[in-house]
């Protein structure tokens, strides 16, 4: 079979999703975390932005490279990482939005996709207290890359290794089955609330509408 075919032919009616995590960790400059050599003196944090598998599996089976677009004031702001781990370590003092472009294997016939991540250096909300103790801040997001009707080549790459299942419980990661369950419950509850409101409103609406028609005639 010529490679052209398996790279362009798509398998109908299936989709494959791959979970990823992306985001940044940051740490304040301190005695235990000194400013690296050559970094400007006004930089207050070291940080690392990354794209990874939630279970630490290898992403390079289907991801060719990841390009991080940093703030223009950095030297060489477009960082192209072609080998795992897909991450950029830098120092800085300010937060900004990082565009993360993920390129898939050349042969797979898929376009690249772009994620946006707001680099987080300063803690707020529930993280605040813990961060003040450790000096560490993190902003890690979970998402799924969905391949609708993947090409045969891509299908092969994606199914060559199992293991994108979320762990039921984990000490290290907050992205677990349990968390998913909780989130589903939360949404379900909210949805029930909305449904209740819709029902109430529709009763009210219908009554008003009837009243209006009665009055109009």
């Amino acid at each position: 079979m010529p490679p052209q075919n398996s790279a362009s032919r798509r398998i109908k009616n299936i989709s494959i999703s791959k979970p990823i995590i992306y985001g940044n960790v940051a740490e304040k400059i301190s005695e235990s975390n000194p400013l690296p050599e050559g970094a400007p003196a006004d930089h207050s944090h070291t940080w690392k932005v990354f794209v990874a598998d939630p279970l630490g599996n290898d992403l390079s089976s289907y991801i060719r490279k990841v390009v991080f677009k940093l703030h223009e004031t950095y030297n060489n702001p477009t960082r192209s990482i072609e080998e795992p781990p897909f991450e950029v370590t830098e120092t800085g003092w300010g937060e900004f939005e990082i565009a993360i472009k993920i390129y898939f294997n050349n042969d797979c016939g898929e376009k690249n996709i772009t994620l946006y991540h707001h680099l987080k250096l300063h803690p707020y909300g529930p993280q605040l207290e813990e961060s003040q103790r450790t000096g560490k801040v993190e902003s890690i997001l979970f998402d799924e890359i969905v391949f609708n009707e993947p090409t045969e080549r891509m299908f092969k790459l994606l199914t060559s290794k199992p293991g994108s299942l979320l762990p039921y419980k984990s000490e290290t990661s907050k992205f677990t089955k349990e968390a998913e369950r909780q989130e589903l419950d939360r949404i379900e509850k909210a949805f029930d609330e909305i449904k209740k409101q819709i029902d109430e409103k529709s009763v009210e609406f219908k009554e008003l509408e009837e009243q209006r028609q009665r009055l109009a005639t």
Partner: protein
Amino acid sequence: MASDILDVFNIKEETRVQPKKHARSENDFGTSGKKKKHALSRELYNLIGTNLPPVAVEKGFKFKDKINSGKASPWVWAPFKNGARSDELELHHWVKGPITETEEEKPYAFEKYNTSLDIPHFSEEEYTNTLKDLSEDWDYEETKYLFDLARDFDLRWAVIYDRYEFSNDKQRTLEDLKERLYKVSAKVLNSNPDGTRDVGLIKSLEAFDKNQEIERKQYLNRLIHRAPTEIAEEESLVIEARKFELAAKKMLMERAQLLQLLDSPQSSASIEQYNSSQGLTQLYNSLMTVDKSKKRKPEVPVPPQLGPNAIPHTQQIQQAQQNQLMRQRQGRKMSSVSQKMFGGKQEISQQQAQSEVWQLLQSKLTEEEMEVYGLRFHDEKLQPGVFIRSQKLSTFKPAVQAKVVETLNELGISVKPTLPTAKVCGKFDQLLQGIATLIDLKKQTDKVSGEVALIKSQKGIE
């Protein structure tokens, strides 16, 4: 030569076929005179070719009328009597002669235009007997005067009103005169001794309403005396009113749609309600109306395309079996695909991995196994390509979106799910749609309640 000119005018040969035939057939029936015509205008014929001239010239080749073609007709100075005159006056006029005996006897041609209106007559006796009770205000003399005037001026009301001078102490308006004349006429006609009555005429006479007539004239008066600014204002008001009408129509339509939407079942409700054929039909209808932008439909059985109304219970089971079969077939297709893909490869390690996949696909995959690979089968058509799951959540018009976000905040739900898996996103999308429906519903409810209040205040209730 003709063809040259035709070329200049860009006329095609085919278009001339029809007139050509026509011309020929005409020639076949043609008289010698017509042939002569062609002979005479041969040069012209060459110029125009077989086309008929655009204007049909019947007398064609001679454009001047013949002068002195016949004898001059005699005109005679003849006397005549006008039958419309009462005084036997004899006048003369020129008539195209010669005059025969019978012609002289003929009545004057314009006599017939001297018509008079058939206004009912009544005597003083009749008046006192039948008409006196009609009105206290009128007496016989004045009524008679009115009728005479009406007869004299052929019911030209403006003139009658102008000439009406019966007494100085009673000022009659035009409407008074009309009312009097019509009423008396109706009465007279009604009591016609012949017994023949024109019911239609009497009815129309009796239908006269003085007050309405006065009102009508007032309206007309006001209409004609409008100032230009008033006219402009009126026009703008009409336009405004039309706008209101359109808006109202649109709103009513939106409301009807919403009502329909509310009557259809919520797609989020438990699947049990769809287990009856009726439920399935309802579901089908509601799915048809669900926003097309919604990416993922809930995992519920979808009835087949044919006959959404006719799915008996037994068929439903069959259908479920069919669905299963279809899935199996898909699975088999998949496996054959992977077979093709992996066939002919030599490396052992790869073959192991492949056979694993192959086997997984061949056996019926459990849900969990599918999840390991993130694999999903879809019944609906997918848009091929890659995307980020959380970026495909429903979005709305900016105004609605802002309210959706607000509602999410009130509910304590973040704007984007923290774990956007397929399940979570599906649920989240439902939530978003629900919120959008609620917002729409609130808007419409506010509108209706406003309207109800308006109608109430207009009708003076409350």
